[in-house]
C-alpha cells in the first residue's frame, strides 16, 4: 500500500513513544496530529530546498553560461556572487506590479498561481530516498504527469490574459508545445512502467540497482533510446532551450510573460526552475537508478553488520546516502540541461513539431512495443543478465 514519510518514521520506537506521550498529555489520539505536523514540516523543508534550488538555478545558469562564454558571471553579491539570487528576489518584490489595462484581471492573477500549484503538487511524489518521499502514491508517475500539465494551462492563460499579441503567440505556442511533447514523455514512461510492473515511484526505483548496469537506461536497447526521448521531451515540456519557443527573446520579446512584472514574473520563473528539477528527478528515478546507492549501502544493513552501529543509526545514515545519491544524479542532469541551453541554437517552430510528431513519438511507440516484447521474451532480464547467463552457460557447456 501507499507508504509515506510518516510510515517510515513510525517504525522507530521514539516516534511511538512520543505519540503515546503526547496522546496522554492532550487527552486524545495524537497520531493524526503528529502525521499532519510531520507532513507540514517535511513539506516546508522540501519547498524551502526547492526554492533554494530554484534560486541557485538562476545563479548556476548565469555562472555556467559565463563559463561557457568565457565571461565572469555574477561575482559582486556575496562570495563568488552566491547571494545573487537573494538580491534578485528582493528586486522582484520591490518592483512595481503593472496590470495591463486591457488584461483579463482574474486570469492574469491566477495564472502564476496555477503554475506554482502545479509544480508544488508534483513535488509531493518526488522520491528523495526510500524513507523521505513525501507520499508514495500507487499512481505516482501518472499523478505527476497529470498535475504537471497544470503548468501548460497556466502558460496558456498567462499568455491569453495579458491581451498582448506577443504574449498570446507565446501562450499558444507554449501550450501546443507542452501538450505535444507530453506524448513521447508519457510513452517513454509507459515503457518503464511495463518493465517495472507498477506506477509508484518506489516500484520504479526498487526494480533497479545501485550500479549503472542495473539501471533501466542500460537495461535493454529500447530503454536506452527511451531515456533520450524522455530527456528531449522533458526539456521541451519545461520550455528549456533549445525548445524555449514560448519565450523566444529574438522573435516574441519575452513570450507568454511579456506583460508580467515583479513577483508575478518571479513565480513563473521559479515554477520553471523547480519543474526542471522535478523532471530531472523523474528521469533519475525512472532511468538512472533513483536513490539506489551502490552495494546496497542505502539500506544501512552493511553499516550495521560491519561497523556494529545500532540499527537505527545505520538506517538513517543509509537514508542520507540515498538522498545524496538521488540529489547528485539530479543535479548532474540539471547541469546537463543548462549546458544544453547554452550550446544549442533554438529550433524553428515547424522543426519543433516535426521533431515531436515525426521522430520522437514513433520512436517512443517503437520503444514501448520493444519493451513489451522484451519483457515477454526474456522474462524481464536485462541485457547484462542475459550476457552473464550466456557466458555461464557456455562455460558449463565447455566443461
Amino acid at each position, binding site marked *: *500500500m501507499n507508504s*509515506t514519510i510518516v510510515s517510515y518514521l513510525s517504525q522507530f520506537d521514539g516516534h511511538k513513544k512520543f505519540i503515546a506521550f503526547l496522546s496522554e498529555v492532550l487527552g486524545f489520539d495524537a497520531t*493524526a496530529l503528529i502525521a*499532519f505536523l510531520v*507532513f507540514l514540516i*517535511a*513539506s516546508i523543508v522540501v*519547498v524551502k530546498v526547492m526554492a533554494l534550488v530554484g534560486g541557485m538555478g538562476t545563479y548556476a545558469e548565469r555562472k555556467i553560461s559565463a563559463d561557457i562564454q568565457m565571461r565572469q558571471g555574477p561575482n559582486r553579491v556575496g562570495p563568488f556572487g552566491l547571494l545573487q539570487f537573494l538580491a534578485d528576489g528582493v528586486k522582484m518584490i520591490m*518592483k*512595481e*506590479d*503593472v496590470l*495591463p489595462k*486591457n488584461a483579463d484581471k482574474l486570469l492574469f492573477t491566477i495564472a*502564476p*498561481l496555477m503554475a*506554482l*500549484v502545479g*509544480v508544488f503538487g508534483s513535488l*509531493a511524489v518526488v522520491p528523495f530516498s526510500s524513507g523521505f518521499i*513525501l*507520499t508514495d502514491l500507487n499512481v505516482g508517475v*501518472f499523478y505527476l504527469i497529470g498535475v504537471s500539465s497544470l503548468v501548460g494551462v497556466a502558460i496558456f492563460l498567462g499568455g491569453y490574459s*495579458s*491581451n*498582448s*499579441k*506577443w504574449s*498570446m503567440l507565446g501562450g*499558444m505556442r507554449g501550450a*501546443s508545445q507542452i*501538450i505535444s511533447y*507530453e*506524448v513521447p514523455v*508519457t510513452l517513454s514512461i*509507459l515503457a518503464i*512502467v*511495463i518493465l*517495472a*510492473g507498477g*506506477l509508484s515511484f518506489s516500484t520504479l526505483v526498487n526494480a533497479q540497482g545501485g550500479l549503472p548496469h542495473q539501471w533501466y537506461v542500460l537495461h535493454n536497447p529500447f530503454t536506452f533510446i527511451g531515456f533520450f526521448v524522455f530527456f528531449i521531451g522533458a526539456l521541451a515540456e519545461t520550455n528549456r532551450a533549445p525548445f524555449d519557443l514560448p519565450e523566444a527573446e529574438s522573435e516574441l*520579446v519575452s513570450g507568454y510573460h*511579456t*506583460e508580467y512584472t*515583479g*513577483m508575478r514574473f*518571479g*513565480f513563473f520563473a521559479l515554477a520553471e526552475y523547480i519543474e526542471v528539477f522535478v523532471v530531472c528527478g523523474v528521469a533519475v528515478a525512472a532511468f538512472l537508478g533513483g536513490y539506489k546507492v551502490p552495494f546496497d549501502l542505502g539500506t544501512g544493513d552493511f553499516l550495521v553488520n560491519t561497523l556494529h552501529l545500532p540499527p537505527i543509526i545505520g538506517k538513517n545514515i543509509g537514508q542520507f546516502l540515498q538522498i545524496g545519491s538521488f540529489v547528485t544524479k539530479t543535479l548532474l542532469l540539471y547541469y546537463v540541461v543548462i549546458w544544453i541551453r547554452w550550446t544549442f541554437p533554438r529550433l524553428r517552430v*515547424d522543426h519543433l*513539431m516535426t521533431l515531436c*510528431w*515525426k521522430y520522437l*513519438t514513433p520512436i517512443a*511507440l517503437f520503444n514501448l*512495443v520493444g519493451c*513489451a*516484447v522484451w*519483457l*515477454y521474451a526474456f522474462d*524481464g532480464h536485462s541485457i547484462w543478465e542475459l550476457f552473464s547467463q550466456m557466458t555461464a552457460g557456455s562455460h558449463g557447456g565447455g566443461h
Partner: protein
Amino acid sequence: MSSPNLDVYMPIIILMAIGVIAVVGALLVGKLIRPHNPNALKESPYECGEEPIGSAWSNFNVRFYVVSLIFIIFDVEGALMFPVAAVFRRFNEIGEGGVLLGSLLLFILVLVLGIVYCWKKGDLDWVKSFQLSDEQIKQLNNVKES
C-alpha cells in the same frame, strides 16, 4: 482496513496550500513596499513602441487545434494503457503474458493507424500551405521569366 487511508494525500494538499499562500502572501507583502504609480503608457500592452492596434484575442490557425486533438487521443490511450502496463509483469510471471501482449499490441496498432492517417494527410506538418510542389515552383519560375 475498512475505509481507504487518505492520509497519503495530505502532503499534496499541504504543498498546494503552501503554493497558494506563497503567491498571495508575496503579492500582499509586496504591496506594502513596492511603488505604485501607473500611467496610461505603462498599462498599455508592449508592442515595441508602436500603438497597439486591436485586441490580441483574435482567431488562430486551426493547426493548433489539430495538434491538441491528436494529443488528447494519445493522452486517453495512455490513460487506458497505464493500468494494463502495470499488470503486465504480474501476468508474465504467472505465464499469461502472451494474451496481454497480444491485446496491448492490438491496442497500439490501432493507435498507430490513427497517427499514420494523420501523417499521410499532412496534419502533422506545421507549415503545410507553404510547401510548394515542384510543379508550382516551376510555374512560379515561368511567371518570373515572362
